[in-house]
């Protein structure tokens, strides 16, 4: 499949001399939801701003829907919608006026029906004639989303769309992103809520200190890094781990009542452990397993690379 966004060799050094991005190569495919993760200052916004034309790259190229973002910026930008990280609105305009303005700015003839549909989908219809300064923060963010969707983009960038948004609205936002995906829109979002990426994304990219350290299919990532943990509550306490079970690198709790086995599901050694325990007549009263979350994976990734 042809990527809808193709980033190659992208680098950015700000005027201050700070190198915010180094040699980024990334392909995004049509219709996917791509989550970009990374700690504060990693370079997520810088990368998005370059693709959207707000920041000039120092090196490398970006092609959006077949158009180079610099040489053919008109065609490229008209395909892209952006909801930036910072709330920035024309406080004295009405919701309707500001969203219509965006559509015109992106070169589309007026289409009141489309604007009405967008505002309704974002539960802003009853606010359409209100001045933006009378809206709450969450409503303002939805106005910015409406602006980004006003020109029917094929690619939508959401830079921390759910920062400072309440739980219900967050779920609403997820639903909205999914319904956009259903209509064929490609969504690239950044977030600091890992559970959000886990919930939403098809693929995940991790940026750290300006470098793309990982790009993976979400499920593959969870499988690859997702260590499982098996905890056994023993019927009789142990004082030490039997030598026969040394291969499993088990851990014994301080009071000797629990055995913990951390394993990779692919290694397929749980059966062997059970057999070993059986042979040693170690009996247990309870058993539980847990899988590490994306959050733990993320933290370990970002920590591992100083």
């Amino acid at each position, binding site marked *: 499949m042809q990527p809808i966004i193709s980033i190659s060799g992208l680098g950015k050094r*700000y005027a201050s001399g700070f190198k915010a991005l180094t040699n980024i190569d990334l392909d995004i495919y049509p219709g996917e939801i791509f989550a970009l993760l990374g700690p504060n200052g990693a370079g997520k916004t810088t990368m998005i701003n370059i693709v959207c*034309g707000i920041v000039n790259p120092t090196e490398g190229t970006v092609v959006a829907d077949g158009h180079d973002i610099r040489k053919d910026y008109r065609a490229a930008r*008209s395909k892209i919608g*952006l909801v930036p990280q910072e709330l*920035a*609105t*024309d406080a004295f305009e009405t919701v309707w006026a500001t969203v219509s303005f965006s559509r*015109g700015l992106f070169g*589309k003839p007026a289409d009141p029906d489309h604007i009405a549909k967008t505002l309704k989908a974002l539960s802003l219809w009853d606010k359409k004639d209100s001045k933006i300064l009378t809206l709450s923060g969450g409503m303002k963010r939805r106005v910015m989303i409406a602006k980004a969707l006003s020109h029917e983009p094929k690619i939508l960038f959401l830079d921390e769309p759910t920062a400072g948004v309440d739980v219900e609205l967050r779920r609403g936002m997820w639903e909205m992103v999914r319904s956009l995906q259903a209509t064929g829109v490609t969504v690239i979002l950044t977030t600091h809520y890992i559970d959000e990426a886990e919930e939403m994304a098809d693929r995940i990219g991790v940026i750290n200190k300006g470098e793309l350290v990982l790009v993976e299919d979400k499920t593959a990532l969870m499988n690859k890094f997702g260590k499982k943990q098996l905890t056994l509550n023993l019927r009789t306490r142990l004082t030490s781990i039997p030598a026969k079970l040394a291969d499993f690198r088990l851990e014994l709790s301080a009071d000797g009542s629990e055995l913990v086995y951390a394993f990779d599901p692919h290694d397929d050694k749980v059966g062997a452990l059970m057999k070993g325990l059986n042979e040693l007549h170690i009996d247990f009263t309870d058993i539980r397993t847990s899988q590490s979350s994306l959050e733990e994976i993320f933290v370990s990734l970002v920590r591992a690379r100083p």
Partner: protein
Amino acid sequence: MNFYAIRAIYIFEMMRTWRTLLQSIVAPVMSTSLYFIVFGAAIGSRIASIEGISYGAFIVPGLTMLSLLTQSISNGSFGIFFPKFSGTIYEILSAPISYREIVIGYVGAAASKSIMLAVIILATARLFVAYEIAHPLWMVIFLFLTAVSFSLFGFIIGIWADNFEKLQLTPSLIVTPLTFLGGSFYSIGMLPPFWRNVTMANPIVYLVSGFRWSFFGASDINVGVSLGFTLGFLLLCLTTVWWIFKTGYRLRA
């Protein structure tokens, strides 16, 4: 050309004028009326005519120019400074528009507003003094060229300024003094030779003079020189704007 974008920016900017009607139109009309009452009626009645023109009529072009210049600069600078200040500039920068279209939208709206204002001031002045316009077409050309070049100049200031102080500094520290000393209220010929020469270094002298010529058919400076100066200034501003967008100066990091 992205006409929809130009139209969107233009309308958006013009709408702001209606919202701030008092500030945009009523205030300048008010202050001009005061000038005419003080200089035209009160003091003017004691001043002999200049080059055969009554003092009240003589100051009409200069006063109009004064408002035209200050309003063009303030409209032009505010229009682009505000999105920068509020952060909404992101949308302009990410839109499929060229810098020409951005300039046409913003500067076009700024110039339209100040031309509207100049017309209102001229109409107001007519209530105080009876003046005639000798060369209406040239009057319109000077009005238009001045409004466009100074809106463009304001646009440049708006991009350069990164705080409100700077935004207000240039108009009040440079443009207002230059306009006052640019022959709005007197003829250059009234000055002693030394000061006359100093004054000739003031670009605004040429604008006021050219504009006045279109009213009375006579001026201190050859009208061709005035026109050349106005066009030169326009060209200078256009070049600067072109450079700003080419380098991304203060707009794109």
